[in-house]
């Protein structure tokens, strides 16, 4: 079944990296997939988003207009996308930056103070991976192990980077409200 995921936040929050980790993990699992970024002025500080589709069948449309999964790291993106999530879908949001108040009862909405956790744990810029860890825990998108392998491959042997990202991933995975 198609798993379509939207990652959204400010440029600089690591939306692209985070979504690429997931895309590469799907590749490692021999899945069909597409990764589609928003492009243009967004990359210079505005909102940024990436759509990832994962399936066993070839991906037809790579555009995600109503995602099954949404990871959102800033308030403008939350407001923009929360009502587009599919009924039955799952939302992971950064509760240290977003006051989530949705009337929707047909979706699961999980907050994690990813930015605060990153700061508290000396993982500056790691909120994206913390949120990803939580997303992996709360959904069936991919396994934690394959995400780790993907991070390792993408970090091309930079051990400190790998260690930090693993720590961030674990923090998110083990978080409980």
């Amino acid at each position, binding site marked *: 079944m198609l798993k379509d995921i939207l990652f959204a936040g400010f440029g600089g929050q690591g939306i692209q990296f985070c979504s690429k980790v997931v895309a590469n993990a799907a590749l490692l699992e021999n899945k069909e997939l597409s*990764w589609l970024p928003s492009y243009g002025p967004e990359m210079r500080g505005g909102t940024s988003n990436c759509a990832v589709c994962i399936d066993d069948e070839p991906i037809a449309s790579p555009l995600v207009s109503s995602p099954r999964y949404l990871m959102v790291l800033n308030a403008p993106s939350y407001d923009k996308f929360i009502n587009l999530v599919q009924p039955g879908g799952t939302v992971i949001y950064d509760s240290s930056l977003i006051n989530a108040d949705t009337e929707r009862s047909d979706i699961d909405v999980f907050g994690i103070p990813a930015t605060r956790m990153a700061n508290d744990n000396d993982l500056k810029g790691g909120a994206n991976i913390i949120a990803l860890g939580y997303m992996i825990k709360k959904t069936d998108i991919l396994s934690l192990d394959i995400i780790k392998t993907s991070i390792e491959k993408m970090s091309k042997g930079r051990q400190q980077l790998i260690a930090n990202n693993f720590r961030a991933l674990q923090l998110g995975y083990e978080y409980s409200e």
Partner: protein
Amino acid sequence: MSKVLMKGNEAIGEAAIYAGCKHFFGYPITPQTELSAYMSKKLPKIGGTFLQAESEVAAINMVMGAASAGIRAMTSSSSPGISLKTEGISYIAGCDLPCLIINVQRGGPGLGGIQPSQSDYNQATKAPGHGDLHLAVFAPASVQEMVSFVCDAFDTAEKYRMPAMLLADGLLGQMMEPVSFDDVKAYTPAEKPWAANGHKNRRPHNIINSLYLKPEELERTNFERFERYADLCKNGQRYEAYMTEDAEHIIVAFGIASRVAKSAISEARKQGVKVGLIRPQTLYPFPVSAFDTIKDDPKVKRIMSVELNMGQMINDIKLAVECKKPVELINRTGGIVPSVKEVYDRIMEANK
């Protein structure tokens, strides 16, 4: 089969290198800049040339120079830049030179926007420059097809001695998908006895030229060129037919529009609607043969063209079905890609 995750723009570059192209001349423009960046990183390492030209005009003329020498050369741009290249494209066609031009389309006219578009369809297929000429136009719908079509485009360009174009769009250029280079066949350079590469005092001098002041001579070159185009039209049409056997409604779409259409068709099929897709993979030649049976098939009620423009390919579809079927337009423009729901709703409306 090993697959890697690549952006469309980067996959084009890698495919071109596989296809034996070591000379790239470009000018920065969104949304195809990753291709230039990729080539600037790769080509110097394999003894090739990456040159950032002073303009699109210069870039296409550098391609003409390199192509005159008999080697594989390419340039890439996006819509406004392609307009600037049309002069050079006309000369290259008039000189019967092979080369590859990439158009990662964005919205127009004018400076337009930077989001994906298919509004250069007419330019690519009807008037890519002044005079009687055509480009062989390939329309990929995935990153994998970008790879295979780059190679096919170079081969076609050389076989027919004409410029070829890969007509993509900003979305395909920016998108990453798994891609394999396993099936790309190794390039073996063909003999090019016409090349202006120095005669070494062993043959008469070669002249690469498009000027014929005697009308009869110019007419003869045009007739000869169009004989080659006719051969290409006969043998070079390519398309994918998807769920068309029992279809009462036929969608026609290329590139990213075809991906959206496929999703909409899957949804509509779940509701029992008999709808299929013709996806042109070549735009010149337009795959007229795809409509040979459709146009006289009594069960086909209508054809719907999904385009990211104000309706350009629709005219070729009307010609292909000889106006025997109604042809409707489903379109968005300005850089907007129609959503699956929009296309699905139109299918359901048509099926009422």
